[in-house]
Protein backbone atom coordinates (compact mmCIF):
# COMPACT_ATOMS: atom_id res chain seq x y z
CA UNK A 1 0.00 0.00 0.00
CA UNK A 2 2.77 2.41 0.96
CA UNK A 3 4.56 1.65 -2.32
CA UNK A 4 1.43 2.43 -4.26
CA UNK A 5 0.97 5.78 -2.59
CA UNK A 6 4.59 6.72 -3.16
CA UNK A 7 4.49 5.81 -6.83
CA UNK A 8 1.14 7.57 -7.16
CA UNK A 9 2.68 10.75 -5.77
CA UNK A 10 5.61 10.27 -8.14
CA UNK A 11 3.29 10.04 -11.13
CA UNK A 12 1.41 13.14 -10.06
CA UNK A 13 4.64 15.05 -9.62
CA UNK A 14 5.80 14.10 -13.12
CA UNK A 15 2.52 15.26 -14.69
CA UNK A 16 2.37 18.54 -12.77
CA UNK A 17 5.99 19.29 -13.59
CA UNK A 18 5.52 18.66 -17.29
CA UNK A 19 2.39 20.84 -17.36
CA UNK A 20 3.99 23.76 -15.54
CA UNK A 21 7.03 23.51 -17.79
CA UNK A 22 4.77 24.31 -20.74
CA UNK A 23 3.34 27.31 -18.97
CA UNK A 24 6.63 29.02 -18.04
CA UNK A 25 6.51 32.58 -19.43
CA UNK A 26 9.67 33.70 -21.20
CA UNK A 27 11.67 36.78 -20.32
CA UNK A 28 11.79 39.43 -23.01
CA UNK A 29 14.71 40.96 -24.91
CA UNK A 30 18.01 40.34 -23.14
CA UNK A 31 16.44 40.74 -19.78
CA UNK A 32 17.07 44.25 -18.48
CA UNK A 33 13.34 44.80 -17.95
CA UNK A 34 12.69 41.47 -16.35
CA UNK A 35 14.41 42.36 -13.09
CA UNK A 36 12.21 43.34 -10.19
CA UNK A 37 11.72 47.12 -9.95
CA UNK A 38 13.34 47.32 -6.50
CA UNK A 39 16.50 45.79 -7.96
CA UNK A 40 16.64 48.52 -10.57
CA UNK A 41 15.34 51.52 -8.61
CA UNK A 42 17.10 51.16 -5.29
CA UNK A 43 20.55 49.76 -5.98
CA UNK A 44 22.87 51.42 -8.50
CA UNK A 45 22.10 54.92 -9.79
CA UNK A 46 24.06 55.33 -13.01
CA UNK A 47 24.79 58.78 -14.38
CA UNK A 48 27.07 60.65 -16.82
CA UNK A 49 27.13 57.46 -18.88
CA UNK A 50 29.08 57.95 -22.07
CA UNK A 51 29.86 55.59 -24.93
CA UNK A 52 32.82 56.75 -27.03
CA UNK A 53 31.04 55.65 -30.21
CA UNK A 54 27.97 53.76 -31.40
CA UNK A 55 29.71 51.83 -34.17
CA UNK A 56 32.88 49.82 -33.90
CA UNK A 57 34.64 47.52 -36.30
CA UNK A 58 35.66 44.04 -35.23
CA UNK A 59 38.93 44.42 -33.21
CA UNK A 60 38.24 48.13 -32.71
CA UNK A 61 37.82 49.49 -29.19
CA UNK A 62 34.95 51.36 -27.56
CA UNK A 63 35.18 53.04 -24.16
CA UNK A 64 32.28 53.26 -21.75
CA UNK A 65 32.71 55.77 -18.94
CA UNK A 66 30.45 57.14 -16.25
CA UNK A 67 29.68 57.26 -12.57
CA UNK A 68 27.40 55.44 -10.25
CA UNK A 69 26.00 56.20 -6.84
CA UNK A 70 25.21 53.23 -4.64
CA UNK A 71 21.80 53.72 -3.04
CA UNK A 72 21.59 54.17 0.70
CA UNK A 73 18.13 52.68 0.30
CA UNK A 74 19.69 49.37 -0.83
CA UNK A 75 16.92 46.78 -0.25
CA UNK A 76 17.28 44.65 2.88
CA UNK A 77 16.58 41.47 0.93
CA UNK A 78 19.60 41.64 -1.33
CA UNK A 79 23.27 41.32 -0.53
CA UNK A 80 25.34 44.48 -0.07
CA UNK A 81 28.06 45.03 -2.69
CA UNK A 82 30.83 43.52 -0.55
CA UNK A 83 31.95 41.49 -3.54
CA UNK A 84 31.24 43.34 -6.76
CA UNK A 85 32.56 43.17 -10.27
CA UNK A 86 32.33 45.55 -13.18
CA UNK A 87 31.22 44.16 -16.50
CA UNK A 88 29.07 44.79 -19.56
CA UNK A 89 25.58 43.42 -20.20
CA UNK A 90 25.09 42.37 -23.80
CA UNK A 91 23.28 39.65 -25.76
CA UNK A 92 26.12 37.13 -26.03
CA UNK A 93 29.77 38.18 -26.42
CA UNK A 94 29.17 40.83 -29.10
CA UNK A 95 32.08 42.77 -27.63
CA UNK A 96 34.97 41.42 -25.56
CA UNK A 97 36.03 43.22 -22.41
CA UNK A 98 39.61 44.44 -22.56
CA UNK A 99 40.07 46.70 -19.52
CA UNK A 100 38.09 47.89 -16.52
CA UNK A 101 38.93 50.74 -14.19
CA UNK A 102 37.23 51.90 -11.04
CA UNK A 103 38.26 55.28 -9.63
CA UNK A 104 41.55 54.92 -11.48
CA UNK A 105 42.31 51.45 -10.08
CA UNK A 106 42.54 48.53 -12.53
CA UNK A 107 39.50 46.44 -11.69
CA UNK A 108 40.12 43.08 -13.29
CA UNK A 109 39.28 41.43 -9.97
CA UNK A 110 36.32 41.86 -7.65
CA UNK A 111 36.14 44.79 -5.26
CA UNK A 112 34.28 45.90 -2.15
CA UNK A 113 32.04 48.96 -2.40
CA UNK A 114 30.28 51.19 0.11
CA UNK A 115 26.63 52.21 0.04
CA UNK A 116 25.89 55.91 -0.32
CA UNK A 117 29.19 56.49 -2.11
CA UNK A 118 29.99 57.49 -5.67
CA UNK A 119 32.37 55.69 -8.03
CA UNK A 120 33.73 56.48 -11.44
CA UNK A 121 34.32 53.69 -13.91
CA UNK A 122 35.82 53.03 -17.30
CA UNK A 123 35.27 49.87 -19.33
CA UNK A 124 37.07 49.28 -22.63
CA UNK A 125 35.56 46.70 -24.95
CA UNK A 126 36.63 45.35 -28.33
CA UNK A 127 34.22 44.65 -31.21
CA UNK A 128 33.82 40.91 -31.62
CA UNK A 129 30.64 39.65 -33.28
CA UNK A 130 29.21 41.74 -36.16
CA UNK A 131 25.64 42.92 -35.82
CA UNK A 132 23.62 45.30 -33.71
CA UNK A 133 23.90 44.78 -29.97
CA UNK A 134 22.41 46.54 -26.98
CA UNK A 135 25.32 47.12 -24.63
CA UNK A 136 25.19 48.35 -21.03
CA UNK A 137 27.69 48.84 -18.23
CA UNK A 138 26.81 46.41 -15.44
CA UNK A 139 27.77 45.93 -11.83
CA UNK A 140 27.69 42.31 -10.75
CA UNK A 141 27.05 41.95 -7.05
CA UNK A 142 27.53 38.62 -5.36
CA UNK A 143 24.16 36.97 -4.59
CA UNK A 144 22.28 39.95 -6.05
CA UNK A 145 23.09 39.46 -9.72
CA UNK A 146 23.83 41.90 -12.50
CA UNK A 147 22.65 45.47 -11.90
CA UNK A 148 22.39 47.00 -15.33
CA UNK A 149 23.15 50.58 -16.40
CA UNK A 150 21.86 52.57 -19.38
CA UNK A 151 22.17 50.74 -22.69
CA UNK A 152 23.23 51.77 -26.15
CA UNK A 153 22.50 50.16 -29.52
CA UNK A 154 25.94 49.57 -30.96
CA UNK A 155 26.71 48.52 -34.50
CA UNK A 156 29.61 46.10 -34.78
CA UNK A 157 30.93 45.93 -38.30
CA UNK A 158 33.24 43.54 -40.10
CA UNK A 159 33.75 39.80 -40.18
CA UNK A 160 33.77 37.59 -37.09
CA UNK A 161 36.61 35.45 -38.49
CA UNK A 162 38.91 38.50 -38.27
CA UNK A 163 38.44 38.80 -34.52
CA UNK A 164 41.56 38.39 -32.41
CA UNK A 165 42.31 39.10 -28.77
CA UNK A 166 46.09 39.40 -28.52
CA UNK A 167 47.55 39.14 -25.03
CA UNK A 168 51.12 38.76 -23.81
CA UNK A 169 51.33 36.46 -20.81
CA UNK A 170 53.56 37.10 -17.79
CA UNK A 171 56.09 34.68 -19.27
CA UNK A 172 56.29 36.79 -22.42
CA UNK A 173 54.33 34.48 -24.68
CA UNK A 174 52.02 36.18 -27.23
CA UNK A 175 48.68 34.41 -27.47
CA UNK A 176 45.23 34.98 -28.98
CA UNK A 177 42.81 34.77 -26.08
CA UNK A 178 39.88 34.15 -28.43
CA UNK A 179 41.17 30.74 -29.46
CA UNK A 180 43.80 30.00 -26.83
CA UNK A 181 43.49 26.52 -25.36
CA UNK A 182 40.24 25.80 -27.21
CA UNK A 183 41.45 22.56 -28.80
CA UNK A 184 42.68 21.43 -25.41
CA UNK A 185 39.28 22.10 -23.83
CA UNK A 186 37.53 20.08 -26.55
CA UNK A 187 40.06 17.25 -26.25
CA UNK A 188 39.62 16.87 -22.49
CA UNK A 189 35.85 17.07 -22.68
CA UNK A 190 35.83 14.19 -25.15
CA UNK A 191 38.32 12.17 -23.10
CA UNK A 192 36.17 12.50 -19.97
CA UNK A 193 32.90 12.03 -21.83
CA UNK A 194 33.86 8.52 -22.93
CA UNK A 195 34.01 6.90 -19.45
CA UNK A 196 31.05 9.05 -18.33
CA UNK A 197 28.88 7.88 -21.21
CA UNK A 198 29.99 4.30 -20.69
CA UNK A 199 29.02 4.51 -16.99
CA UNK A 200 25.58 5.96 -17.73
CA UNK A 201 24.81 3.42 -20.46
CA UNK A 202 26.10 0.60 -18.28
CA UNK A 203 23.49 1.33 -15.60
CA UNK A 204 20.64 2.60 -17.70
CA UNK A 205 19.94 -0.91 -19.03
CA UNK A 206 19.07 -2.02 -15.49
CA UNK A 207 15.80 -1.61 -13.55
CA UNK A 208 15.47 2.09 -12.80
CA UNK A 209 13.64 4.34 -10.34
CA UNK A 210 10.38 2.76 -9.20
CA UNK A 211 11.12 -0.93 -10.04
CA UNK A 212 14.51 -0.44 -8.41
CA UNK A 213 12.93 1.17 -5.38
CA UNK A 214 10.44 -1.71 -5.10
CA UNK A 215 13.24 -4.28 -5.29
CA UNK A 216 15.08 -2.54 -2.46
CA UNK A 217 11.84 -2.39 -0.46
CA UNK A 218 11.31 -6.12 -0.96
CA UNK A 219 14.84 -6.93 0.19
CA UNK A 220 16.05 -7.95 -3.28
CA UNK A 221 18.80 -5.37 -3.48
CA UNK A 222 21.52 -8.02 -3.80
CA UNK A 223 20.16 -8.89 -7.24
CA UNK A 224 20.75 -5.33 -8.40
CA UNK A 225 24.57 -5.48 -8.25
CA UNK A 226 26.47 -8.43 -9.69
CA UNK A 227 30.12 -9.31 -9.22
CA UNK A 228 30.82 -8.08 -12.79
CA UNK A 229 29.37 -4.72 -11.78
CA UNK A 230 31.82 -4.54 -8.89
CA UNK A 231 34.77 -5.39 -11.16
CA UNK A 232 33.72 -2.77 -13.71
CA UNK A 233 33.33 -0.23 -10.92
CA UNK A 234 36.82 -0.90 -9.52
CA UNK A 235 38.34 -0.74 -13.02
CA UNK A 236 36.68 2.60 -13.65
CA UNK A 237 37.84 3.97 -10.29
CA UNK A 238 41.46 3.01 -10.97
CA UNK A 239 41.19 4.32 -14.53
CA UNK A 240 39.89 7.67 -13.25
CA UNK A 241 42.73 8.08 -10.76
CA UNK A 242 45.30 7.20 -13.43
CA UNK A 243 43.73 9.67 -15.88
CA UNK A 244 43.69 12.49 -13.31
CA UNK A 245 47.35 11.89 -12.42
CA UNK A 246 48.38 11.66 -16.04
CA UNK A 247 46.54 14.80 -17.10
CA UNK A 248 47.89 16.77 -14.16
CA UNK A 249 51.45 15.69 -15.03
CA UNK A 250 51.03 16.51 -18.70
CA UNK A 251 49.68 19.98 -17.81
CA UNK A 252 52.67 20.63 -15.54
CA UNK A 253 55.04 19.55 -18.28
CA UNK A 254 53.40 21.75 -20.90
CA UNK A 255 52.94 24.79 -18.63
CA UNK A 256 55.77 24.76 -16.08
CA UNK A 257 54.96 28.25 -14.77
CA UNK A 258 51.56 28.27 -13.03
CA UNK A 259 49.71 30.60 -10.68
CA UNK A 260 46.62 29.68 -8.69
CA UNK A 261 43.24 31.15 -9.61
CA UNK A 262 43.18 34.71 -8.27
CA UNK A 263 40.41 35.51 -5.81
CA UNK A 264 41.55 38.56 -3.87
CA UNK A 265 39.23 41.52 -3.39
CA UNK A 266 40.66 44.90 -4.32
CA UNK A 267 39.94 47.80 -2.00
CA UNK A 268 38.69 50.80 -3.96
CA UNK A 269 38.25 54.19 -2.33
CA UNK A 270 35.05 56.06 -3.16
CA UNK A 271 35.05 59.48 -4.79
CA UNK A 272 35.29 62.32 -2.26
CA UNK A 273 32.07 63.91 -1.02
CA UNK A 274 31.50 67.26 -2.76
CA UNK A 275 28.85 69.97 -2.40
CA UNK A 276 27.39 68.64 -5.65
CA UNK A 277 26.49 65.34 -4.09
CA UNK A 278 25.84 66.41 -0.50
CA UNK A 279 24.53 69.98 -0.30
CA UNK A 280 20.91 69.36 -1.25
CA UNK A 281 18.63 67.38 1.06
CA UNK A 282 15.21 66.02 0.20
CA UNK A 283 12.51 64.70 2.48
CA UNK A 284 9.56 62.87 0.98
CA UNK A 285 6.22 63.67 2.58
CA UNK A 286 4.01 61.71 0.22
CA UNK A 287 4.36 59.63 -2.91
CA UNK A 288 1.62 58.12 -5.04
CA UNK A 289 1.53 56.23 -8.29
CA UNK A 290 -1.58 56.91 -10.36
CA UNK A 291 -2.25 53.79 -12.42
CA UNK A 292 -4.35 55.37 -15.20
CA UNK A 293 -2.05 58.02 -16.66
CA UNK A 294 1.13 56.23 -15.50
CA UNK A 295 2.05 59.12 -13.29
CA UNK A 296 3.99 59.36 -10.07
CA UNK A 297 3.32 62.32 -7.80
CA UNK A 298 5.53 63.34 -4.91
CA UNK A 299 5.41 66.01 -2.27
CA UNK A 300 8.83 66.79 -0.87
CA UNK A 301 10.74 69.33 1.14
CA UNK A 302 13.98 70.38 -0.51
CA UNK A 303 16.67 72.10 1.53
CA UNK A 304 19.28 73.92 -0.49
CA UNK A 305 22.55 73.80 1.46
CA UNK A 306 24.62 74.99 -1.48
CA UNK A 307 25.73 78.55 -2.16
CA UNK A 308 23.73 78.92 -5.35
CA UNK A 309 20.03 78.96 -6.32
CA UNK A 310 18.93 75.59 -7.73
CA UNK A 311 16.08 74.25 -9.88
CA UNK A 312 14.86 70.67 -10.13
CA UNK A 313 15.76 69.44 -13.61
CA UNK A 314 15.48 65.67 -13.59
CA UNK A 315 14.13 62.67 -11.74
CA UNK A 316 15.91 59.47 -12.69
CA UNK A 317 14.89 56.01 -11.61
CA UNK A 318 16.12 52.69 -12.97
CA UNK A 319 17.80 54.51 -15.89
CA UNK A 320 14.50 56.11 -16.92
CA UNK A 321 14.87 59.88 -17.17
CA UNK A 322 12.03 62.29 -16.45
CA UNK A 323 13.17 65.78 -17.38
CA UNK A 324 11.65 69.21 -17.31
CA UNK A 325 11.81 70.75 -20.77
CA UNK A 326 11.87 74.27 -19.29
CA UNK A 327 15.24 73.65 -17.70
CA UNK A 328 18.39 72.91 -19.73
CA UNK A 329 19.16 69.22 -20.02
CA UNK A 330 21.71 67.68 -17.74
CA UNK A 331 24.08 64.76 -17.87
CA UNK A 332 24.17 63.13 -21.25
CA UNK A 333 23.15 59.53 -21.40
CA UNK A 334 22.61 57.65 -24.56
CA UNK A 335 19.35 56.01 -23.55
CA UNK A 336 17.15 58.21 -25.73
CA UNK A 337 14.57 55.47 -25.65
CA UNK A 338 14.32 55.76 -21.86
CA UNK A 339 13.96 59.49 -21.80
CA UNK A 340 10.64 61.16 -20.99
CA UNK A 341 11.56 64.62 -22.24
CA UNK A 342 8.52 66.44 -20.93
CA UNK A 343 7.81 63.88 -18.27
CA UNK A 344 8.68 66.02 -15.23
CA UNK A 345 6.29 68.67 -14.03
CA UNK A 346 7.07 70.87 -11.01
CA UNK A 347 4.25 72.82 -9.36
CA UNK A 348 4.86 76.23 -7.87
CA UNK A 349 8.01 78.31 -7.67
CA UNK A 350 10.79 76.19 -9.23
CA UNK A 351 13.82 78.06 -7.82
CA UNK A 352 15.14 77.16 -4.37
CA UNK A 353 17.51 79.77 -2.93
CA UNK A 354 20.57 79.02 -0.77
CA UNK A 355 19.60 78.16 2.81
CA UNK A 356 15.94 77.86 1.88
CA UNK A 357 13.65 74.86 2.35
CA UNK A 358 10.92 74.69 -0.24
CA UNK A 359 7.99 72.35 -0.63
CA UNK A 360 7.76 70.94 -4.15
CA UNK A 361 4.93 69.00 -5.72
CA UNK A 362 6.30 67.09 -8.64
CA UNK A 363 4.80 64.77 -11.15
CA UNK A 364 6.72 62.26 -13.29
CA UNK A 365 4.47 60.81 -16.00
CA UNK A 366 5.19 58.58 -18.94
CA UNK A 367 4.19 55.28 -20.50
CA UNK A 368 7.75 54.19 -19.62
CA UNK A 369 6.59 53.40 -16.07
CA UNK A 370 4.64 50.55 -17.60
CA UNK A 371 6.67 49.60 -20.67
CA UNK A 372 9.85 49.46 -18.56
CA UNK A 373 7.83 47.44 -16.04
CA UNK A 374 8.60 49.68 -13.11
CA UNK A 375 4.96 50.03 -12.07
CA UNK A 376 4.94 46.41 -10.95
CA UNK A 377 6.58 47.77 -7.77
CA UNK A 378 3.03 48.23 -6.48
CA UNK A 379 2.91 44.45 -6.18
CA UNK A 380 6.19 44.18 -4.25
CA UNK A 381 6.11 43.19 -0.57
CA UNK A 382 7.56 46.59 0.38
CA UNK A 383 6.03 48.94 -2.17
CA UNK A 384 8.92 51.35 -2.17
CA UNK A 385 10.54 53.32 -4.93
CA UNK A 386 13.93 54.94 -5.29
CA UNK A 387 15.69 57.35 -7.58
CA UNK A 388 17.84 60.43 -7.85
CA UNK A 389 16.83 64.08 -8.16
CA UNK A 390 19.14 66.27 -10.23
CA UNK A 391 19.13 70.02 -9.63
CA UNK A 392 20.57 72.60 -11.96
CA UNK A 393 22.53 75.23 -10.05
CA UNK A 394 22.82 78.86 -11.17
CA UNK A 395 26.59 78.26 -10.97
CA UNK A 396 26.27 75.79 -13.86
CA UNK A 397 26.89 72.76 -11.68
CA UNK A 398 24.61 69.77 -11.15
CA UNK A 399 23.52 68.90 -7.62
CA UNK A 400 22.11 65.49 -6.86
CA UNK A 401 20.18 63.84 -4.06
CA UNK A 402 19.05 60.25 -3.71
CA UNK A 403 15.44 59.74 -2.66
CA UNK A 404 13.44 56.68 -1.68
CA UNK A 405 10.35 55.83 0.25
CA UNK A 406 7.03 54.03 0.27
CA UNK A 407 4.64 54.61 -2.58
CA UNK A 408 0.89 54.06 -2.69
CA UNK A 409 -0.95 53.15 -5.90
CA UNK A 410 -4.17 55.01 -6.71
CA UNK A 411 -6.76 54.94 -9.47
CA UNK A 412 -7.70 58.66 -9.13
Amino acid at each position, binding site marked *: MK*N*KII*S*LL*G*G*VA*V*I*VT*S*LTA*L*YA*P*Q*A*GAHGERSQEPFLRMRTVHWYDTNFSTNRVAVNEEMTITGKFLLAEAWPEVIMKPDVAYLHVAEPGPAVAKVETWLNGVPAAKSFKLELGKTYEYKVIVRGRKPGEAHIHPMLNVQSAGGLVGPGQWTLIEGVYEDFTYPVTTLTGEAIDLNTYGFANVVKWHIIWAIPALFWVLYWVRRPLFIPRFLMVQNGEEDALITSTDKKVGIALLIGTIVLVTMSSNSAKEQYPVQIPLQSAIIPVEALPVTPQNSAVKAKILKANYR*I*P*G*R*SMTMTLDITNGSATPIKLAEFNSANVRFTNSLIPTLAKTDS*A*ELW*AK*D*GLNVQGEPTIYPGETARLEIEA*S*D*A*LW*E*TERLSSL*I*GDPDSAFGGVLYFQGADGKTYMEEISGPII*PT*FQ
Partner: protein
Amino acid sequence: MLNKTIAALLFGLFFFSTTASAHGGLSADKDLCILTIGAYKMHFTGYQPDSSATKEFCEDIPSTGLTIVAMDAMDRKMKNFPTEIRVIEGEAEAEATDANTILHMPFKVYPTGNISFEHRFPKEGKFVGIVTIKDGDEEIVSRFPFAVGMGGGFPVWILLAVAVAVGGAITYKKMA
Protein backbone atom coordinates in the same frame (compact mmCIF):
# COMPACT_ATOMS: atom_id res chain seq x y z
CA MET B 1 -1.12 2.88 -24.57
CA LEU B 2 -4.13 4.26 -22.73
CA ASN B 3 -1.72 6.27 -20.58
CA LYS B 4 -0.22 7.97 -23.60
CA THR B 5 -3.61 8.79 -25.10
CA ILE B 6 -4.80 10.39 -21.91
CA ALA B 7 -1.55 12.26 -21.46
CA ALA B 8 -1.80 13.59 -25.03
CA LEU B 9 -5.38 14.66 -24.39
CA LEU B 10 -4.38 16.51 -21.25
CA PHE B 11 -1.55 18.30 -23.00
CA GLY B 12 -3.91 19.25 -25.83
CA LEU B 13 -6.48 20.57 -23.40
CA PHE B 14 -3.83 22.63 -21.70
CA PHE B 15 -2.70 24.27 -24.92
CA PHE B 16 -6.29 24.89 -25.91
CA SER B 17 -6.93 26.91 -22.80
CA THR B 18 -4.09 29.34 -23.45
CA THR B 19 -4.07 29.86 -27.20
CA ALA B 20 -7.43 29.06 -28.70
CA SER B 21 -9.36 32.29 -28.18
CA ALA B 22 -9.32 34.93 -30.92
CA HIS B 23 -8.99 38.56 -29.94
CA GLY B 24 -8.14 40.46 -33.08
CA GLY B 25 -5.26 42.86 -32.53
CA LEU B 26 -4.94 41.91 -28.88
CA SER B 27 -2.76 39.05 -27.73
CA ALA B 28 -0.99 37.85 -24.64
CA ASP B 29 2.56 37.66 -25.95
CA LYS B 30 4.77 35.89 -23.44
CA ASP B 31 3.77 37.58 -20.18
CA LEU B 32 2.85 40.90 -21.79
CA CYS B 33 -0.52 41.93 -23.12
CA ILE B 34 0.09 43.54 -26.50
CA LEU B 35 -2.18 45.50 -28.81
CA THR B 36 -0.83 45.45 -32.36
CA ILE B 37 -1.64 48.45 -34.56
CA GLY B 38 -0.04 47.90 -37.95
CA ALA B 39 3.72 47.94 -37.33
CA TYR B 40 3.28 49.49 -33.88
CA LYS B 41 2.67 47.95 -30.51
CA MET B 42 0.98 49.12 -27.37
CA HIS B 43 1.04 47.52 -23.95
CA PHE B 44 -2.58 46.93 -22.92
CA THR B 45 -3.80 46.64 -19.31
CA GLY B 46 -7.30 46.42 -17.89
CA TYR B 47 -8.19 46.99 -14.24
CA GLN B 48 -11.36 46.65 -12.20
CA PRO B 49 -10.47 48.60 -9.06
CA ASP B 50 -13.79 47.96 -7.31
CA SER B 51 -13.65 44.19 -7.52
CA SER B 52 -9.99 43.28 -7.91
CA ALA B 53 -7.86 46.34 -7.03
CA THR B 54 -4.60 46.40 -9.01
CA LYS B 55 -4.98 42.97 -10.63
CA GLU B 56 -4.35 43.27 -14.38
CA PHE B 57 -6.43 41.88 -17.24
CA CYS B 58 -5.75 41.26 -20.87
CA GLU B 59 -8.53 40.53 -23.38
CA ASP B 60 -11.76 39.61 -21.58
CA ILE B 61 -13.04 41.63 -18.64
CA PRO B 62 -14.19 39.34 -15.83
CA SER B 63 -17.14 41.27 -14.39
CA THR B 64 -19.43 44.21 -15.05
CA GLY B 65 -18.86 47.57 -13.38
CA LEU B 66 -16.08 50.14 -13.36
CA THR B 67 -13.27 49.20 -15.73
CA ILE B 68 -10.09 51.17 -16.32
CA VAL B 69 -8.03 50.57 -19.41
CA ALA B 70 -4.48 51.84 -19.81
CA MET B 71 -2.62 51.60 -23.10
CA ASP B 72 1.08 52.38 -23.24
CA ALA B 73 3.07 53.12 -26.39
CA MET B 74 5.97 50.72 -26.77
CA ASP B 75 7.42 52.75 -29.63
CA ARG B 76 8.50 56.32 -28.80
CA LYS B 77 7.36 57.48 -32.25
CA MET B 78 3.74 56.82 -31.33
CA LYS B 79 3.82 59.75 -28.89
CA ASN B 80 3.32 62.09 -31.85
CA PHE B 81 0.45 60.16 -33.46
CA PRO B 82 -3.13 61.38 -33.04
CA THR B 83 -5.09 58.45 -31.67
CA GLU B 84 -8.82 57.73 -31.59
CA ILE B 85 -10.49 55.25 -29.27
CA ARG B 86 -13.92 53.74 -29.79
CA VAL B 87 -15.73 50.94 -27.99
CA ILE B 88 -18.83 49.48 -29.62
CA GLU B 89 -21.30 46.85 -28.50
CA GLY B 90 -21.65 43.84 -30.74
CA GLU B 91 -19.99 40.85 -32.37
CA ALA B 92 -16.45 40.89 -33.71
CA GLU B 93 -17.47 42.01 -37.23
CA ALA B 94 -19.89 44.76 -36.12
CA GLU B 95 -19.60 48.13 -37.87
CA ALA B 96 -19.28 51.22 -35.69
CA THR B 97 -22.42 53.38 -35.66
CA ASP B 98 -23.60 56.12 -33.34
CA ALA B 99 -26.16 53.72 -31.93
CA ASN B 100 -23.77 50.97 -30.89
CA THR B 101 -20.90 53.23 -29.77
CA ILE B 102 -20.65 53.21 -26.00
CA LEU B 103 -17.39 55.14 -25.67
CA HIS B 104 -15.68 57.51 -28.09
CA MET B 105 -12.52 59.55 -27.63
CA PRO B 106 -11.80 61.63 -30.76
CA PHE B 107 -8.32 61.97 -32.28
CA LYS B 108 -5.86 63.40 -29.81
CA VAL B 109 -2.10 63.35 -29.26
CA TYR B 110 -0.95 61.74 -26.00
CA PRO B 111 2.53 63.15 -25.28
CA THR B 112 3.30 60.82 -22.37
CA GLY B 113 2.56 57.79 -24.53
CA ASN B 114 -0.19 56.64 -22.18
CA ILE B 115 -3.86 56.54 -23.07
CA SER B 116 -6.13 55.78 -20.13
CA PHE B 117 -9.89 55.68 -19.99
CA GLU B 118 -12.59 54.32 -17.78
CA HIS B 119 -16.02 52.94 -18.48
CA ARG B 120 -18.73 51.42 -16.34
CA PHE B 121 -20.12 48.34 -18.06
CA PRO B 122 -23.70 48.06 -16.77
CA LYS B 123 -24.35 44.59 -18.21
CA GLU B 124 -22.60 41.56 -19.60
CA GLY B 125 -22.08 41.30 -23.32
CA LYS B 126 -19.80 41.31 -26.30
CA PHE B 127 -17.90 44.41 -27.32
CA VAL B 128 -15.28 45.55 -29.79
CA GLY B 129 -12.50 48.02 -29.06
CA ILE B 130 -11.30 50.04 -32.06
CA VAL B 131 -8.04 51.98 -31.91
CA THR B 132 -7.09 54.21 -34.84
CA ILE B 133 -3.76 56.01 -35.17
CA LYS B 134 -2.67 58.61 -37.73
CA ASP B 135 0.90 57.96 -38.87
CA GLY B 136 1.32 60.97 -41.17
CA ASP B 137 -1.44 60.65 -43.77
CA GLU B 138 -1.97 56.99 -43.10
CA GLU B 139 -4.72 55.80 -40.77
CA ILE B 140 -4.10 52.45 -39.11
CA VAL B 141 -6.97 50.64 -37.41
CA SER B 142 -6.78 47.87 -34.87
CA ARG B 143 -9.88 46.01 -33.64
CA PHE B 144 -10.10 43.72 -30.66
CA PRO B 145 -13.33 41.94 -29.69
CA PHE B 146 -13.77 41.26 -25.99
CA ALA B 147 -16.40 39.97 -23.62
CA VAL B 148 -17.51 41.49 -20.32
CA GLY B 149 -18.64 39.35 -17.41
CA MET B 150 -18.79 36.09 -19.36
CA GLY B 151 -16.61 34.34 -16.83
CA GLY B 152 -13.55 34.53 -19.07
CA GLY B 153 -11.64 31.41 -20.11
CA PHE B 154 -11.66 28.07 -18.37
CA PRO B 155 -9.57 28.54 -15.21
CA VAL B 156 -6.15 26.93 -15.46
CA TRP B 157 -6.26 25.59 -11.91
CA ILE B 158 -9.24 23.37 -12.75
CA LEU B 159 -7.30 21.85 -15.64
CA LEU B 160 -4.36 21.27 -13.32
CA ALA B 161 -6.61 19.66 -10.73
CA VAL B 162 -8.15 17.36 -13.36
CA ALA B 163 -4.69 16.50 -14.70
CA VAL B 164 -3.48 15.65 -11.20
CA ALA B 165 -6.52 13.49 -10.46
CA VAL B 166 -6.41 11.58 -13.78
CA GLY B 167 -2.63 11.19 -13.66
CA GLY B 168 -2.81 9.93 -10.10
CA ALA B 169 -5.59 7.46 -10.89
CA ILE B 170 -3.69 6.03 -13.86
CA THR B 171 -0.51 5.58 -11.89
CA TYR B 172 -2.42 4.07 -9.00
CA LYS B 173 -4.21 1.61 -11.27
CA LYS B 174 -0.99 0.63 -12.97
CA MET B 175 0.68 -0.12 -9.66
CA ALA B 176 -2.28 -2.10 -8.30
